[in-house]
């Protein structure tokens, strides 16, 4: 598409990146078909092609109001549009630029600002989030049952094996997962241990994804740097890989290189982290795991981060199949479940509609269990699912 970005903006690296992305879009509309919000709302303004167009207008200097902002806010950043786009448009990068620009031009209401700030303050901090959850759990019996569903019970954290092998990998714990589902990482650690790999846990708080989605660049950079600092000594000592069991965090680590590309001090380190980061499936598919699942019926909910950001479509399903699960087909498998980081809080209506649709599709083939690969999807689905939802890594240990 033709573009008219102001000359001054074109001098900046953001401006150049935005221009290149905008020009790579040929306005074919293929992406709309893959977009969850376009599917629900049928409005060009709520689809990727229309969002790209709105960002183009915004960056070209057309007047914008909260209207445009609301259409950009409704985007889940699921990146299904990127997977669908034949022309290779890097939509998410453009959206980041667009969201940052509109945040400058359209101030949010006070309650909205407070809510966003509160989310950025609580979620990325394991301690604060843990305290809130403890409080909620204590009050749980007093609350109506509809609310109770949203407060997950405490789960056992499982035994972490001794570090004893010469092959070493890091498991980055992230922010909310150690509080909500502490058992996932340790089950991965035990599995790796049985196959001659020692996993070392790293607790560094949020990887930066939460603030990144809330367009808080400074805080994002700070979180990334804290994470890098926590990882660095082990990286220098020669670990093989950095694993995260939350697809959302994996997608974020994959972007470290890009986000800190202009940071004199950290760009090289960030690039190294991106190089070393792996999803568990990339490690596990190479291990000789026994088939033990004996035909249990599982429906896998492939997180958007896994499919669209990490581009690992079908890989977890293949491992589950290999170890003996009956992996059932899922209709509309590419449609986001609505979790999307803080989206389920900020856009609850759309998030719930997407969850209902996702669950209906997951139930269709009558699974015994639903598996997923991201903490966000797991808690979001579990709050409404009639069938238990588990991380696929926990399934590998079940028999």
């Amino acid at each position, binding site marked *: *598409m*033709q*573009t008219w970005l102001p000359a001054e903006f074109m001098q900046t690296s953001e401006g150049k990146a935005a221009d290149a992305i905008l*020009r*790579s*879009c*040929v*306005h*074919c*509309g*293929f992406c*709309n*078909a893959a977009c969850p919000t376009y599917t629900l709302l*049928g*409005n*060009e*303004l709520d689809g990727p*092609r*229309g969002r790209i*167009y*709105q960002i183009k*207008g915004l960056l070209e200097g*057309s*007047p*914008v*109001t909260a*209207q*445009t902002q609301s259409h950009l806010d409704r985007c889940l950043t699921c990146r299904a549009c990127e997977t*669908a*786009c*034949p*022309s*290779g*448009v890097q939509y998410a990068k453009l959206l980041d630029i667009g969201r940052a620009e509109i945040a400058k031009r359209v101030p949010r209401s006070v309650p909205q600002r407070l809510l966003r700030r509160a989310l950025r303050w609580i979620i990325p901090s394991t301690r604060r989030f843990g305290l809130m959850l403890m409080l909620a759990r204590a009050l749980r019996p007093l609350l109506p049952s509809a609310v109770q569903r949203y407060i997950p019970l405490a789960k056992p954290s499982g035994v972490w094996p001794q570090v004893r092998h010469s092959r070493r990998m890091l498991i980055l714990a992230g922010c909310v997962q150690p509080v909500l589902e502490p058992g996932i990482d340790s089950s991965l650690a035990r599995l790796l241990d049985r196959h001659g790999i020692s996993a070392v846990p790293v607790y560094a708080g949020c990887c930066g994804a939460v603030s990144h989605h809330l367009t808080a660049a400074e805080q994002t950079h700070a979180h990334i740097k804290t994470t890098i600092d926590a990882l660095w000594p082990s990286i220098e000592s020669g670990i093989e890989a950095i694993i995260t069991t939350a697809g959302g965090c994996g997608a974020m680590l994959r972007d470290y290189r890009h986000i800190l590309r202009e940071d004199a001090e950290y760009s090289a380190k960030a690039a190294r982290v991106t190089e070393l980061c792996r999803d568990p499936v990339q490690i596990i598919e190479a291990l000789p795991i026994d088939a033990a699942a004996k035909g249990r019926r599982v429906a896998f909910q492939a997180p958007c981060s896994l499919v669209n950001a990490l581009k690992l479509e079908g890989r977890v399903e293949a491992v589950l199949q290999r170890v003996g699960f009956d992996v059932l087909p899922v209709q509309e498998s590419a449609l986001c479940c609505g979790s999307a980081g803080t989206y389920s809080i900020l856009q609850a209506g759309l998030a719930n509609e997407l969850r209902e649709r996702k669950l209906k599709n997951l139930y269709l083939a009558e699974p015994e269990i639903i598996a997923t690969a991201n903490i966000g999807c797991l808690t979001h689905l579990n709050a409404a699912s009639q069938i238990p939802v588990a991380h696929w890594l926990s399934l590998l240990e079940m028999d």
Partner: protein
Amino acid sequence: MSLSKTTCAALMTRLGKVLSKHALLHDEEALRPYECDGLSAYRQLPAVVCLPETVEQVQAVLRICDELQVPVVPRGAGTGLSGGALPDHAGVLLVLTKLNRILEIDAPNFCARVEPGVRNLALSEATRPLGLYYAPDPSSQIACSIGGNVAENSGGVHCLKYGLTVHNVLGLKMLTIEGELLDIGGKTLDAPGYDVLALLCGSEGLLGVIVEITVRLLPCPECAQVMVAAFDDVAKAGAAVGNVIAAGIIPAGLEMMDKLAIRAAEDFVHVGYPKHAAAILLCEVDGARVEVPEELQRVRQIMLESGAFEVRIATDEAERALFWKSRKATFPAVGRLSPDYYCMDGTIPRHRLAEVLTRIEALSEQFGLPVANVFHAGDGNLHPLILYDANREGDLTKAEALGACILRLCVAVGGTITGEHGVGIEKLDGMCMQFKSSELSQFLRVKAAFDPQGLLNPGKAVPTLHRCAELGAMHVHRGQVPFPELERF
């Protein structure tokens, strides 16, 4: 002529009573993304965008517009490549994507009733578990609407054997501009009286707004196999197309891609096509399990005899799907090679294929703009994609001039200016090239019979005689571009 303040106020008040706040867009900020369809070189802001959710709402909108004499441009998914859904600046853009329900799948009678906003591929996905599918498959099928398909009489890679949209539609419900609901055709193949159904297929939103479609479904073939044949010379590939058809074989699909098109598609889908091919042919054979392998071998033999240096048959269903995905994504994949492309849609007699392709190559060199070719070779429907850069001054004008030369070439060898993408706004001048004024007058009379005030999609598909006359004059004067009134990239 723009909408007067009083008409606009009356229009908004009355539409506001029919549509919810979110279904009625009026601010420039919200209208902007609706200013163009798949042909983004032509842009025009509408006065208002309406997003009705029910047939009753569509009807109410039409009645209001008819009474206030406000033009109406229907729009489906906005993937059209001829600017058919380009808004009227003094009119309503009537977007039908929210009417996206599949109303009935009548499996025993091999048909389905759908609302116009249902995506083409969504219908086949919904019917596949029942062993049925909807045959016309435009490359844009993932996104385009069935209403839009009917309005454009769209074709697709499988239309060589199964026909265009018109051959697969059994009935329509259409609203006239006055808001009268017409029920045309039905679940059977023939209906008494004039074949109005055929007239409406391809009417490009000029005669009425389609609000329901009954389509014919086909049983999924027992077996379908696709092969790719690679050639070191485009002319050889062109000849091979003729040889396959001459042997009495009607493939389910027969598509050609040239070097540039292959490069773009490979970048996206990674099928692993032979790298050195000047052209490839994709040929699908379908039918009974006992027949297909034998026929496929015959095609293979013909391809080799026609000079193919490699023939590869998709090993399984997944690979077959991948072949077609790459073919169907080729237009937008060309966006990887060039910021913009201008897609042509001429048809030619099949036996002139090799000659026309050679002449297009010469024209491409003459104008200094690359041309990628990807098209329905089996039915002689060319889609030369002219690669240009809209940010470079003069490039679009050059691309349009090259396009016009290509279309003139198509007409000169006995073909037409459009195979399946419609005339829209973009090929109006081509219509002057193709038809005599007496023929155009007949078209205009049909239009007037349905829409006496000329409110539905005005200025599209059929040029006024005046325009054609002026065009004659324009060619003498040169230098002046078509549609000076439109903002352009």
